[in-house]
C-alpha cells in the first residue's frame, strides 16, 4: 500500500508578477494522480483541497467530483472539520482556467472565467450547508478534439486577487480541479468521410472494409485507429454510427468483414490480418490520404458478439506469439471493448491477459442471452479473465441487435426494451471516454466509466424510462489494497489479507459465481442462483447473503499494519442483487445499505450507499430461463470517497481503521434483500 505523500522534487521557484506575491518555497511536487483522500494537503503554503462537487440529500451532504457535463450546474463547498486553517466567513471564490504548478508559478493572478469572482459565505457547520452553486451550466466545454476543459477553483483567503499563501485551491497540478465536458454522445467538430474499400493479404472473400476518417486528415498529425469486428450474421457496414462518431472526434475507424461463421479462431484471424493489412496498405488506401496519419501505437479493438470474443482471442494470439504482425505490435493494442461476446473458448484462448478490457452486455439480449443454460452465453466471463484494468457497462432492455446499425430485429426479449437510437447514444457516451482513457489517460473522462447514471447525466439526457445503465470499474494499474476478493483464503470467515470476517446476515455463502443448474429458478439451497461469472475450472468467487431485519451485518477486519486509510481515495466494491430470491423480489428497486468504518477506538463513520444517487440495481425483470422473474445477476461498482467518512467533524481516525462493516435493515436502507459482494478494496484509481 502506498500512502499519500508528496513526492520529493527540487526547489520550484517563486511566484512572479503582481503585487503581494507570496514567495512559495520549493518542496516536493504533488503527484499527478489525485490522491488527496484527506481532502486537503498543505503544499507550498497553499491549502490544496477538493472544493468542487455536488450536494447530496443525506450524509455526507456533499461529495467532491471532477467531471461535469456541459450545461449542468457546478457546486462548491468546504468542510471546516477537514480544512484545517480555513475559518468560517465570507470569501471571494474564483473559477479560473486550469494551470499547472509551473504556470501558476509564472502567473498567480486570479482571473475569473465567469467575468468576476463570487462572494461566498462559508459559515455552516456542515459541508452540505456550505454548498454553493458556482456555475449554473455556463462554463465552456469546447476543447476541440479533446474532451474536457479544466478549471481550478481558488478561495482567495487573503483577498489579494492572487494565489498566495493561505489560499485554498482545488487544482494546482497537471490535473485540473474540475472539468466541464461536452456530451460525448454528440458528434465532434470534424466532418467524417466514409468509404468502402478492399485490402489484400487477408482471406479471400473477406477483403472488404468500411472506413471512416476526418475529412481534414491530411492536415492532421497522427491519430489513433479503432478497428471494429462484427458478429455472426452481422455486417461490417453496420457500425457507421460508431465510425462517423469517432471520425468526427479525430479518430480513424476501420470495420472489416469478419470470418465468424466457422468460429472464433477464424474471427480472430480476420481481426489480426485486417489490422495488419490496413496499416500496411495506407499508401494506397484512398489514394494514400491516410498515410503518415495513423498512430500505430494507439489501436483499439471493438468486437460484437462472436467478434467480441474474436478480438480477445486475437489479443491472446499476439500475446502468445502465435500471430506475429508485420505492421504493429502487441503493445500497440491499447484496449478492447467487447459487445455481448460469446464464450466458446477456454481461458487459455479467449484471454485478455493484461490489456485494458471493457465489456458491454444487454440484459434483453435474445442471442447471447446470459441464461445459465450454457456457458457459451456467460458474457461476463471474459471480463473476469481480464487481469488488469477492466470495466463493464450493463444495459437493461437492450437486445443483441440494438448495438449495431443494421436495422431489423433488436433481437431482444423482455420488458421495457431500449431502441437502437437510445442504445447508440449510450454507446457513444461511454465509448468515446473509453477511447480517451485507453489512448490518452484523460483524467477529464474517468468518471464517465464509473459514476452511477442516476446522478451523472447530460443536460439533455437520453429520454426514456427504460434506460438503466450499470457499470463496474476496476482499474488495476493503480495502487490498491484488496481487503477481500474471495479468491484467496477460501473460507468465508477469513478475508484475502488473513483478517477475520464475521456475519450476522442470513445464509452467507462464499463460492464460485456459477449458477448451480441451468436456469434462474429460485431454490433456497442455490446460493449462487443467477450468477454467470464463473464456470468449472475458472473459479471466480464472491460472497452472497441476505437480510431481513435491522442491524444484520458483515464485517471485514483490516489487518494491523494496513489500517492507515488516509492515503486511499476510495473504498470500492462491486455488488449485485440475487435474482428471483424472495428477498430480492419482495421490493423491486435499488437496494441500499450502510457502509461503516470503525477505528481502533471504536469510533465509526457511516455512509449509506444511496447517498450518492443510486443503490444496487434490481435485476432486469425478464422471464424465462426457468420460472420466475429476473434475469442474470450483474455487478455494479460502488465507490465511496474515504474522506467522506469523516465529513462534518465525524470523530473517526482514518489512520487507525480496524474494520469495514456493511449494515443492513430498514434503519440502514432496504428492509430486506439478498446480494452478492466482490472485490472489496481500497484504491487510488
Amino acid at each position: 500500500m502506498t500512502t499519500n505523500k508528496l513526492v520529493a522534487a527540487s526547489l520550484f521557484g517563486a511566484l512572479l508578477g503582481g503585487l503581494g506575491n507570496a514567495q512559495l518555497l520549493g518542496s516536493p511536487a504533488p503527484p499527478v494522480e489525485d490522491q488527496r483522500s484527506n481532502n486537503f494537503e498543505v503544499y507550498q503554503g497553499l491549502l490544496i483541497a477538493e472544493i468542487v462537487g455536488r450536494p447530496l440529500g443525506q450524509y455526507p451532504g456533499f461529495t467532491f467530483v471532477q467531471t461535469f457535463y456541459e450545461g449542468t450546474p457546478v457546486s462548491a463547498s468546504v468542510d471546516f472539520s477537514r480544512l484545517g486553517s480555513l475559518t468560517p466567513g465570507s470569501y471571494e471564490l474564483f473559477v479560473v482556467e486550469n494551470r499547472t504548478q509551473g504556470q501558476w508559478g509564472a502567473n498567480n493572478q486570479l482571473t475569473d472565467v465567469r467575468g468576476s469572482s463570487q462572494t461566498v459565505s462559508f459559515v455552516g457547520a456542515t459541508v452540505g450547508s456550505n454548498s454553493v452553486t458556482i456555475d449554473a451550466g455556463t462554463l465552456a466545454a469546447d476543447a476541440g478534439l479533446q474532451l474536457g476543459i479544466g478549471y481550478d477553483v481558488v478561495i482567495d483567503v487573503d483577498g489579494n486577487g492572487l494565489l498566495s499563501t493561505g489560499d485554498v485551491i482545488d487544482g494546482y497540478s497537471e490535473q485540473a480541479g474540475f472539468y466541464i465536458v461536452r456530451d460525448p454522445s454528440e458528434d465532434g467538430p470534424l466532418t467524417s468521410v466514409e468509404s468502402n474499400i478492399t485490402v489484400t493479404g487477408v482471406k479471400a472473400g473477406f477483403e472488404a472494409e468500411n472506413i471512416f476518417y476526418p475529412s481534414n486528415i491530411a492536415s492532421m498529425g497522427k491519430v489513433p485507429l479503432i478497428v471494429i469486428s462484427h458478429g455472426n450474421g452481422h455486417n461490417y457496414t453496420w457500425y457507421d454510427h460508431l465510425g462517423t462518431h469517432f471520425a468526427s472526434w479525430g479518430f480513424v475507424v476501420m470495420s472489416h468483414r469478419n470470418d465468424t461463421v466457422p468460429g472464433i479462431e477464424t474471427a480472430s484471424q480476420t481481426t489480426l490480418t485486417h489490422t495488419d493489412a490496413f496499416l500496411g496498405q495506407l499508401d494506397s488506401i484512398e489514394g494514400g490520404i491516410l498515410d503518415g496519419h495513423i498512430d500505430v501505437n494507439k489501436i483499439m479493438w471493438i468486437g460484437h458478439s462472436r467478434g467480441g470474443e474474436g478480438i480477445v482471442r486475437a489479443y491472446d494470439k499476439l500475446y502468445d506469439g502465435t500471430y506475429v504482425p508485420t505492421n504493429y505490435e502487441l503493445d500497440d493494442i491499447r484496449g478492447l471493448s467487447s459487445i455481448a461476446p460469446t464464450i466458446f473458448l477456454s481461458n487459455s484462448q479467449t484471454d485478455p491477459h493484461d490489456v485494458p478490457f471493457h465489456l458491454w452486455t444487454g440484459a434483453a439480449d435474445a442471442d447471447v442471452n446470459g441464461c445459465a443454460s450454457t456457458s457459451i452465453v456467460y458474457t461476463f466471463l471474459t471480463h473476469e479473465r481480464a487481469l488488469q484494468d477492466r470495466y463493464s457497462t450493463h444495459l437493461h432492455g437492450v437486445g443483441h441487435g440494438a448495438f449495431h446499425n443494421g436495422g431489423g430485429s433488436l433481437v431482444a426479449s423482455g420488458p421495457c426494451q431500449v431502441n437502437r437510437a437510445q442504445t447508440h447514444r449510450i454507446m457513444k457516451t461511454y465509448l468515446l471516454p473509453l477511447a480517451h482513457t485507453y489512448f490518452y489517460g484523460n483524467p477529464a473522462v474517468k468518471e464517465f466509466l464509473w459514476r452511477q447514471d442516476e446522478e451523472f447525466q447530460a443536460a439533455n439526457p437520453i429520454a426514456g424510462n427504460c434506460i438503466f445503465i450499470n457499470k463496474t470499474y476496476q482499474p488495476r494499474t493503480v495502487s490498491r489494497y484488496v481487503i477481500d476478493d474471495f479468491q484467496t483464503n477460501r473460507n468465508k470467515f477469513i478475508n484475502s489479507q488473513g483478517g477475520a470476517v464475521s456475519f450476522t446476515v442470513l445464509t452467507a455463502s462464499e463460492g464460485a459465481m456459477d449458477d448451480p443448474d441451468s436456469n434462474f429458478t429460485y431454490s433456497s439451497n442455490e446460493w449462487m442462483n443467477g450468477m454467470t461469472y464463473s464456470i468449472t475450472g475458472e473459479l471466480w468467487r464472491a460472497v452472497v447473503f441476505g437480510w431481513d431485519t435491522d442491524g444484520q451485518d458483515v464485517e471485514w477486519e483490516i489487518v494491523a499494519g494496513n489500517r492507515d486509510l488516509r492515503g486511499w481515495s476510495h473504498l470500492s466494491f462491486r455488488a449485485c442483487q440475487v435474482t428471483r430470491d424472495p428477498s430480492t423480489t419482495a421490493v423491486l428497486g435499488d437496494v441500499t445499505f450502510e457502509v461503516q468504518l470503525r477505528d481502533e477506538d471504536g469510533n465509526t463513520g457511516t455512509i449509506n450507499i444511496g447517498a450518492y444517487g443510486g443503490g444496487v440495481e434490481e435485476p432486469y425483470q425478464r422471464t424465462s430461463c426457468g420460472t420466475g422473474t429476473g434475469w442474470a445477476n450483474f455487478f455494479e461498482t460502488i465507490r465511496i470517497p474515504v474522506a467522506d467518512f469523516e465529513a462534518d467533524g465525524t470523530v473517526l481516525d482514518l489512520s487507525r481503521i480496524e474494520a469495514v462493516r456493511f449494515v443492513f435493515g430498514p434503519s440502514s436502507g432496504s428492509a430486506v434483500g439478498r446480494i452478492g459482494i466482490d472485490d472489496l478494496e481500497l484504491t487510488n484509481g
Partner: protein
Amino acid sequence: MVDSKRMTSKRFLIGTLAMMALAAAAVTAVGDRREVVPEVVAGSSENVHSILAALPIGVTSSFAHDWSAERAQVSSGWLLALEVNPELLVRHQSADPVLYVGDLAVERINSGDLSGRVIVLVPERIDLATAPIFFGAAALPESVDTSTRKLELTRATNAGAKPFAASALEAALERGFGGSDAETVEFQDRRAVLEFAAQWIFEFAPEESDFAKELLLL
C-alpha cells in the same frame, strides 16, 4: 450419372462472367433474424430439399478449409447449390446446425437464410452418389473434427438420411457444369473459386447480389 473414374483434370477457362438477370425476389428486412436456434433432429436430411447445381473443382493453389478442426488443405472438391430449410441457415452467435456432405463439414459461402438457397464448398471430391447431405447438431464448424463428423454421418444414416438420387445428381451436374459427364473445373486459387461462386449467388440467391458483388471485388 456421376462417374468419378471418368473425371479428368482439365483446365477450364472461365470466360466472360455470365451474370443472370436478377429475379425480383421477395426480401425480408435487412438484419432480420430469428432468435431461437432450431434444434436439428438427427438425420434431418428432410431439411435439405434439393440439389440445384454441382460442379467438380480443382484448386491449383490449395487453401485451408477453416470449417473443420483439422483445417485440411483444399485442392479439389465440389461446388454445390442447395435448397434447404432457411431457418437452419440463420446465423446466430451461439452454435448453429452444421451442414454436412457425407462426413465432411462444408463451407457455406453465402448466407442463404432468406431464400434457403446456399452455395457450399465441399473440401474433398467425395462421391455424391453415396454421401447424404444433411444438417447435424449445432457446433462451431472450426471445432468439428474427424470423429465428430463420422458420428454425425452415422447418426444421419441411422435416421434414414440418403444421398440424392442419381437423376437429381445428373440434373445438378447438367446445370452446374453443363453436362452430366462432368470434368473437373480447375481454379487458380480460393479467390477464383469465390468469383465463380458469385455467379451462382446471382443465379440462385439473387437477393444476396450485394454480397456476390463483394466477392467479385466490385
